[in-house]
């Protein structure tokens, strides 16, 4: 019996090992290279020169990156909570169906297309300004281009809200409806039900969605390049610039390492949650 189990374990390892090898080669190794190359001097010794240079040249952009990604994450959270809660708790059945159909569209639209779409939509002569002017909300003279930090935040939120909403609406639908009905029967208004009963139960899902969005935003090159390529911009653009213009992998890797550090807390949180969820499935 024991040998059969051992054989199954060996077979299992043999089947996963090619995939593990690819992950090690294409994800773990490059990450380690970032750590090493960020601190390796020309003579091969340890140096903090690259890190100092990265922090010196790109301090503004690092702050800008944190600001943009945090602001976008907050925007994503607010929009996703509003949409997901209406989709699961809203009073009008027809509105819920319509909303469910509407909100998903940007989900599959690639970031590069999102960049192009927003580049035209948010420009001074874009459709947004024409509609705002046409609707009498602003006058033509005060129309301005939103292709700066605001454009990046709008593009990120537009693209990522459906993802978090989808996760969140799924989790909200799984909340025991008896809890909700009991609270409603006791006279709690809908927003109290949302804040006191539903949101606490879907906190984990919301967190996972937001962490994955945050990491994704730290990885996107196309959106900042197309919407706001000039400083201050996101570090992804700086990394590409160090490499394409200077062939400077050392400072690029120092910036990469800093972006890994930015994501580390969230990543650890996500991994703990996801592994805990996946392990009993065996």
């Amino acid at each position, binding site marked *: 019996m024991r040998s059969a189990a051992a054989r*199954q374990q060996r077979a299992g390892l043999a089947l996963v090992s090619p995939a593990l090898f690819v992950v090690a080669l*294409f994800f773990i190794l490059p990450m380690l290279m970032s750590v090493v190359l960020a601190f390796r001097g020309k003579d091969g010794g340890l140096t903090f020169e690259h890190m100092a240079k990265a922090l010196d040249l790109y301090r503004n952009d690092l702050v800008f990156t944190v600001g943009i990604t945090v602001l976008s994450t907050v925007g994503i959270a607010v929009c996703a909570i509003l949409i997901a809660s209406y989709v699961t708790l809203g009073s009008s059945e027809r509105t819920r169906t319509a909303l469910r159909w509407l909100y998903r569209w940007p989900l599959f639209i690639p970031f590069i297309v999102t960049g192009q779409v927003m580049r035209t939509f948010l420009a001074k002569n874009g459709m947004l300004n024409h509609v705002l002017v046409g609707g009498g909300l602003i006058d033509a003279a005060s129309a301005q281009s939103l292709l700066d930090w605001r454009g990046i935040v709008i593009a990120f939120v537009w693209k990522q809200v459906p993802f978090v909403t989808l996760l969140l609406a799924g989790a909200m639908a799984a909340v025991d409806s008896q809890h909700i009905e009991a609270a409603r029967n006791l006279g709690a208004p809908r927003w109290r039900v949302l804040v006191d009963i539903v949101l606490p139960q879907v906190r984990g899902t919301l967190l996972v969605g937001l962490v994955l969005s945050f990491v994704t935003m730290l990885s996107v090159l196309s959106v900042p390049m197309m919407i706001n390529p000039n400083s201050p911009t996101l570090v992804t653009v700086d990394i590409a610039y160090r490499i394409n213009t200077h062939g400077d992998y050392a400072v690029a890797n120092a910036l990469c390492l800093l972006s890994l550090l930015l994501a580390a807390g969230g990543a650890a949180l996500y991994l703990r949650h996801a592994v805990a969820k996946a392990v009993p499935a065996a």
Partner: protein
Amino acid sequence: MTTARFGRVDLLPMLTRGLFLALIAFVIFGPLANLVLWAFAERWYFPNKFPNEYGLSFWYRVFQPRGNALASLGTSVWIAVLTVIVSLAVAVPAGYALARLRLPWRAGILLLFLLPQAIPNMPVYVNIARVFYTIGLNGTVAGVVLVHAAHGLVLAVWIASAAFAAVDASLEEASRNLGASPWTCFRTVTLPLAAPGLIASAIFVFLESLDEFTGTYFVGVPDVTTLPLLMFNASMGGNYQIASITALLLLVPSIAFMLVVERFLKPEVLAMVGR
């Protein structure tokens, strides 16, 4: 609660809901409408609200037999097909093992497969490009396929594992009890039952490769130009018509697939496409 319910419809809430939906519809479709307008604009000068002139001449330019766009589309599709083959060849066995076999260090293995989602990808692309440059894989289709396949693999492992886990194990036991070898059982019972999920994962990997930009930007340049790269170059060069037409070409398969696929895949997996 409301006495007004009898006899007449609550007008105010209905109006509010209508306005709310209209606002969301504008936020979602406004930007896309702007893209479509650009795709059919012959000329569009400031400060006109709509194009000065509509036409198809840029479409002819995109689709002319020896144009860049068709060549890029060909490169993109070729890379995506190879990516599917490479990543599924590696991901299907792994997905099967994760779903069906007892594995030592299971939590650690899961952690490794989850990790790529949890880290920013720039360090990965930058250093792979650096290594590929020294071994001559930069600017080659093979190099781009490897990068795409590594990313597609992570996605495919999860979908394949879910597909295998959903197969009723008692059917496999029945076939084994009737004397089928493990391989025959896998080939005639497990694989056909898991096939829809595996096909879905193949389509996902295909779309992800088709839409991928950052990895190709680092590893593919200057010799491999995929559709997203062509779109990017056209846009940065100020040619909004070509950029919009190529963007539409990229959108169509993704949107079409979204409308079909969301019924049978988990949102966590759904959300990984379109980067």
